[in-house]
């Protein structure tokens, strides 16, 4: 069997998200267009003495509003799994899967779901009971006693990240290939990329793909505070996330879920589904450099972008007759850390060369925060929205572009590209701690 001759075309026919800016596609997109910030004080726990005491939380979420009575079947699921269930429901419905059902044995799931939120109270109780302050050592017997008394079986096991896809499969009855990956902040982009390859090869007709995550809990925030990776702008949280700005001082934690329905073109046509865009390329690389630092040349990110463009058959150095680059928008990983934004910009420069400053390259993390493993999926969906509307989302809080970034970061307000034909090809970048780089290339569907 020859790969090149039998590869299926892959399209996206549905999407759903749960984000700090809202759970409805149009509502949250509208807020991005108004450059609203979702960042505010942490309400999930007492973060008052934390150097970062703010985050972009999903507010007023109730799974029953999304699944109705079916929500009860998932009552033990952690919050990030519940986000994913709601996003899946929206995507599944948008794809018309409930109206024209697919063969469920040919529908798989590939998520970059993060670990479930830690049930930290009994865990902390065990850690306190288990530490003998006199001998300054751990008393495992005391630890076990408190843990066995306090930890709840469902809450412990539900933290396993692959159980998010288990819930989704149970909800919808899907039986195709089902995987979960955790490549830190690159995870949901990687999941969508690998799901795309599974359909391309013909191992499934459709894939539910994306990710979910919430690290807005004491130990999750602690980890990033110890790494000094988060902004500490306690006096003005709404401007804390400021990718590409000269004064940026770290990312802002967000949470949520983003799910897309990938489908072979044949399947989508057979079902008469509305096609949102085509997935045309996926690139994945490893920096193989350091666990704490990104390669200073941004070569890992550049490699991922190049690989995605190569698969898409798009030449990054080419333009259309008007001189416009063929890539109309890059959704940046753009975390707002000094290092990421600098190296990612370097990577874009090395791929696009002289054309780099002409490619819009913005980060919605400025408004939504960093949804960690869910970020890539949600950002890909903003690329889909850019294709659908012809409008590119801006980078908020960008007052003084750092010259080491210095590209077209679409500062301050969205950019309407409809006067020059709208938006055709987009890249979405996601890079993870430890040097995991993933890029997806989508384009407007042309039959």
């Amino acid at each position, binding site marked *: 069997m020859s790969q090149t001759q039998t590869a299926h075309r892959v399209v996206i026919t549905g999407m759903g998200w749960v984000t700090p800016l809202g759970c409805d596609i149009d509502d949250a997109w509208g807020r991005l267009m108004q450059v609203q910030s979702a960042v505010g004080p942490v309400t999930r726990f007492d973060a008052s003495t934390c150097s970062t005491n703010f985050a972009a939380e999903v507010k007023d979420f109730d799974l029953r509003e999304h699944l109705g009575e079916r929500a009860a079947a998932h009552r033990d699921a952690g919050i990030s799994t519940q986000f994913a269930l709601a996003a899946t429901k929206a995507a599944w419905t948008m794809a018309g899967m409930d109206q024209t059902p697919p063969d469920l044995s040919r529908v798989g799931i590939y998520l970059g779901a993060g670990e479930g939120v830690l049930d930290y109270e009994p865990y902390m109780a065990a850690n306190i009971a*288990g*530490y003998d302050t006199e001998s300054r050592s751990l008393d495992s017997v005391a630890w076990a006693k408190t843990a066995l008394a306090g930890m709840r079986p469902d809450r412990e096991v539900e933290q396993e990240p692959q159980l998010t896809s288990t819930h989704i499969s149970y909800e919808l009855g899907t039986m195709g290939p089902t995987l979960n990956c955790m490549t830190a902040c690159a995870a949901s982009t990687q999941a969508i990329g690998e799901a795309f390859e599974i359909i391309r*090869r013909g191992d499934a007709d459709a894939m539910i793909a994306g990710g979910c995550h919430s690290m807005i809990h004491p130990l999750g925030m602690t980890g990033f505070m110890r790494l000094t990776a988060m902004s500490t702008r306690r006096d003005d949280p709404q401007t804390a996330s400021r990718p590409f700005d000269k004064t940026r001082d770290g990312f802002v934690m967000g949470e949520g879920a983003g799910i897309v329905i990938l489908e072979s073109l044949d399947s989508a046509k057979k079902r008469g589904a509305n096609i949102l865009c085509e997935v045309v390329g996926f690139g994945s690389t490893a920096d193989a450099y350091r666990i704490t630092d990104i390669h200073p040349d941004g070569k890992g990110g550049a490699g991922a972008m190049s690989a995605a463009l190569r698969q898409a058959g798009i030449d990054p150095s080419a333009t259309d007759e008007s001189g416009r680059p063929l890539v109309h928008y890059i959704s940046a990983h753009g975390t707002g850390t000094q290092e990421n934004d600098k190296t990612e910009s370097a990577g874009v420069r090395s791929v696009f060369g002289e054309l780099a400053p002409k490619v819009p390259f913005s980060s919605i993390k400025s408004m939504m925060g960093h949804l960690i493993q869910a970020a890539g999926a949600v950002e890909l969906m903003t690329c889909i929205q850019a294709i659908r509307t012809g409008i590119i989302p801006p980078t908020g809080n960008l007052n003084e572009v750092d010259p080491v970034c210095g590209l077209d970061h679409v500062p301050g307000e969205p950019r309407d590209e409809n006067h020059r034909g709208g938006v055709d090809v987009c890249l979405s970048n996601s890079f993870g701690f430890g040097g995991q780089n993933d890029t997806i290339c989508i384009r407007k569907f042309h039959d």
Partner: protein
Amino acid sequence: MRSHSVITGLGPVCAIANTPNAFWEALRSDAFGISPIDSFDVSGFRTQIAGQVRDVNIRDFVPKSYRKATKVMARDTELAVIAAKVAAEDAGLKTRGSEDDDEGFTINPARTGCQIGAGLIAAETEELSRAVATAQDSDGNFSLRSWGTVGEGEAGMNNLPPLWLLKYLPNMLACHVTIIHGLEGPSNTVMGAEASALLSIGESARVIERGSADMCFTGGAESRINQLGLIRWDYAGRLAHAHRDANPQDICKPFHPESQGGLLGEGGGMLVIERAEHAANRGARAYAKITGFAAAQTPRPYIPATESMREHDEIDRGLAASITNALRDAGRAPEDLDAVFCLGLGQLVLDQMELGALRHSLGDSADSIPIVSIAHRTGNTMAAHAGLLTACASLCIQNGEVPPNIVVRSGDQPHRQPNIVLVCTPSLGGQAAAMILEKP
């Protein structure tokens, strides 16, 4: 032509062996790797025995220049790094992880990928509890206010090292391995409990087939032999309650009606796989060829492994579907198989559902050919397990025999030379995978 991958390097690191040769010898002997847990005082836990990896020191498996970085490796990462080094050596590769010189590497970084199955990594209990103990309120409860560093905070969290989080991200297994060996191709960290390694190996084979890499380091590693891991696996109904004095051979008996339950192990099950032509061009020995792969899912809620699970499914439907699809992918029929290498945890309900899936997908063959499990000898090594199982199957193919000691169901037909075998596994969350291996 479709590009098949061959397995050219084995890195089995587990309770019964730390090298391919020792692994094969242990599989042929009656060596049991289960013993009382001795890495911490386990007397307060309901399961006190497990399959522990011994006699390896991470510092011996990294270049001198990388020894400092071993301080930020969790046990899971150490096992992955050790197993990857063993596999690379077994494959006859020289990488920058082999030694400290920087010449004569035999891999092309950009064309070498790395997919490693992993589990959730538990924070080291002593390290975390020491820090947490500094942040208590007057009632002795954890105090978030004292934990913080600002205002009235007493900076309890600063008792954790700055890189604390990086020790526990599951992708650190692959990150350290890619950094040590210089692997810049596609890299992923798949998490699917016991299916993690097989899903990773399958993905690696697909990455090679689609032309995104020539070679991959692949498999999995995990250690749940720690306080949190023991509790969670106990809670999931997957562990026998066993006192340290219990005889492990009486407790865990895969597919046997008197088995009392599963046992935990730890390990690294890493492989080097590469495009068949790539292996041939560099004169590498191929243990086995991967000719078929598939993954599938059982659509049921997560339930602890008890009888109530069977109320949802008599058989593991995902496992059955993955076996059927893997055979189709390989262009093989059930009758072509000479042996099955499966999970067989020794937990009655899980074993019955697994056997049900084998019978559903393989028909009479499920009862006529030998079925192999190693979980009673190594413990359930979780994300490493299917990597170890694949290494076991590869060695059987290469040596032309299935050692009687690892056959847990003998089948009613005379055993044939294992030229075409099935490696398959169900998992905690219903994710299942199956792979067909053939003699090259």
